[in-house]
């Protein structure tokens, strides 16, 4: 029981290693990461109706093994670095015009050199799994010791190191409020949200750092400026990709960053879309839960947003269903819907109406009605 509960969270680490192996083998195997993503979308959709509670022993303790889970999360940093290195190697081969030929390394056969189409597969595979690394960057952002720094480095691999500060000091404090750029208001689509949320969180981190340095009597250009430092942490990736393929390398890195940040902001989008909080404490009703079984295991319970935002200090394996707003489907399935905004809005309509009726306070309902009229051209079912 204890082994299974801990091992079930290894889907991403194992899949990341398979993706790396696929890019190494080359040829059409470079698309392995994309195939896995598609396969998991199907599994998530097929298992959407299975929801589990957090398991605890007779003494009320979690079965989670902290040292094991933290070890896995720390190990994911070199795994994500390896994804970038293996991709850079393939870009180097492509831009150097390495002739396609089958070689072997011990008993492993691989294709030396890579075609343009398979390089695209390698880039998308890398981007998808770098983007999914967010779940570790997120979890570790709530660890205030060395884990926080590891979170910064993981996020820096996607050019988003500002996330670690903005998530804790902005998103967790201002959730559901207009001051939180990561909360998507009703009517916004995921594509616009990606840019606005990313820029808004970076600006928050910039302003927070500027204020801190000013209070300390230091100039903005300073080694203690963590907003700047975060972007410096991304420099090794930039150098690596320029070295590997010049302009092609830079374009590939840009694609990886754009797609991985799109996944990050899609999670923010799905986690709080259209929910409203008037001043006051963050409650369960200010988040959407996505806790179908595959989403829970794959995304290390990040979908238990309602509990997470009220108990931000709680380890992911201890988070539980708290009866908050729930989409009823997993992240993979919902993500597909968000890609076509009219379909997403149609899907979310009934959930928002339910939230307005059964979760919102009177003040929140008033704001929701204003949004419904201004943004969606209709009054809420609740008046």
């Amino acid at each position, binding site marked *: 029981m204890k082994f299974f509960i801990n091992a079930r969270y290894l889907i991403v680490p194992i899949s990341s290693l398979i993706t790396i192996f696929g890019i190494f083998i080359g040829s059409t195997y470079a698309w392995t990461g994309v195939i896995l993503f598609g396969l998991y979308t199907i599994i998530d959709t097929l298992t959407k109706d299975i929801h589990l509670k957090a398991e605890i022993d007779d003494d009320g303790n979690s079965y989670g093994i902290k040292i094991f889970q933290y070890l896995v999360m720390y190990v994911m940093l070199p795994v994500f670095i390896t994804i970038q290195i293996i991709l850079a190697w393939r870009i180097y081969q492509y831009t150097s015009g390495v002739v396609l030929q089958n070689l072997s390394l011990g008993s492993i056969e691989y294709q030396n050199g890579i075609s343009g189409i398979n390089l695209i597969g390698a880039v998308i595979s890398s981007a998808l799994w770098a983007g999914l690394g967010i779940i570790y960057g997120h979890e570790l952002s709530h660890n*205030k*010791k060395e884990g*926080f720094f590891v979170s910064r480095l993981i996020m820096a691999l996607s050019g988003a190191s500002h996330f670690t500060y903005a998530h*804790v000091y902005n998103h967790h*404090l201002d959730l559901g409020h207009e001051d939180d750029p990561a909360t998507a208001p009703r009517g916004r689509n995921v594509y616009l949200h990606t840019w606005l949320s990313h820029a808004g969180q970076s600006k928050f981190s910039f302003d927070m750092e500027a204020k801190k340095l000013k*209070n*300390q009597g230091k100039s903005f250009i300073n080694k203690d400026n963590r907003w700047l430092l975060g972007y410096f942490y991304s420099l090794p990736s930039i150098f690596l990709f320029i070295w590997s393929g010049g302009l092609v390398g830079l374009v590939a890195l840009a694609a990886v960053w754009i797609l991985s940040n799109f996944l990050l902001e899609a999670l923010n989008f799905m986690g709080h879309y259209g929910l409203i909080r008037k001043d*006051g404490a*963050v409650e369960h009703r200010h988040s959407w839960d996505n806790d179908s079984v595959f989403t829970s295991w794959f995304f290390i319970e990040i979908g238990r947003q309602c509990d997470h935002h009220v108990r*931000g200090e709680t380890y992911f394996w201890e988070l539980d269903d708290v009866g908050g707003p729930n989409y009823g489907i997993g992240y993979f399935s919902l993500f597909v819907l968000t890609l076509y905004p009219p379909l997403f809005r149609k899907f979310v309509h009934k959930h928002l109406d339910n939230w307005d009726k059964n979760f919102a306070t009177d003040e929140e309902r008033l704001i929701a009605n204003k949004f419904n009229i201004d943004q969606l051209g209709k009054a809420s079912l609740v008046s």
Partner: protein
Amino acid sequence: MLKIFKKNKIPKRAALLQSNINFEVLPRTTLLSSALSKGIDWPHRCKVGSCGTCKCRVVSGEVKPNIDFSYTLNQEEIDAGFVLACQSELLSDIEVEINIKNKEKK
């Protein structure tokens, strides 16, 4: 070497001066979580160090901050000994004052 493994394994005690409450804080446990587990109605909100609701003033003793308090507390507060209970572990027994008037920052 052995000292590294031995350090910080002894529970410390926190005394709340204004309410005459005294409780134990285990190693690797924050002041706030210890207080809450003892049923003490310590003001708190985000529990991740961003809102400042749980701030208190350490009158004596030493705490180990888990985060840089300067993002949430201003320099005057830090100089006056204010800490965030949700992000403070104890390095020694401490005496604290809680600013219970400031329950909501926002």
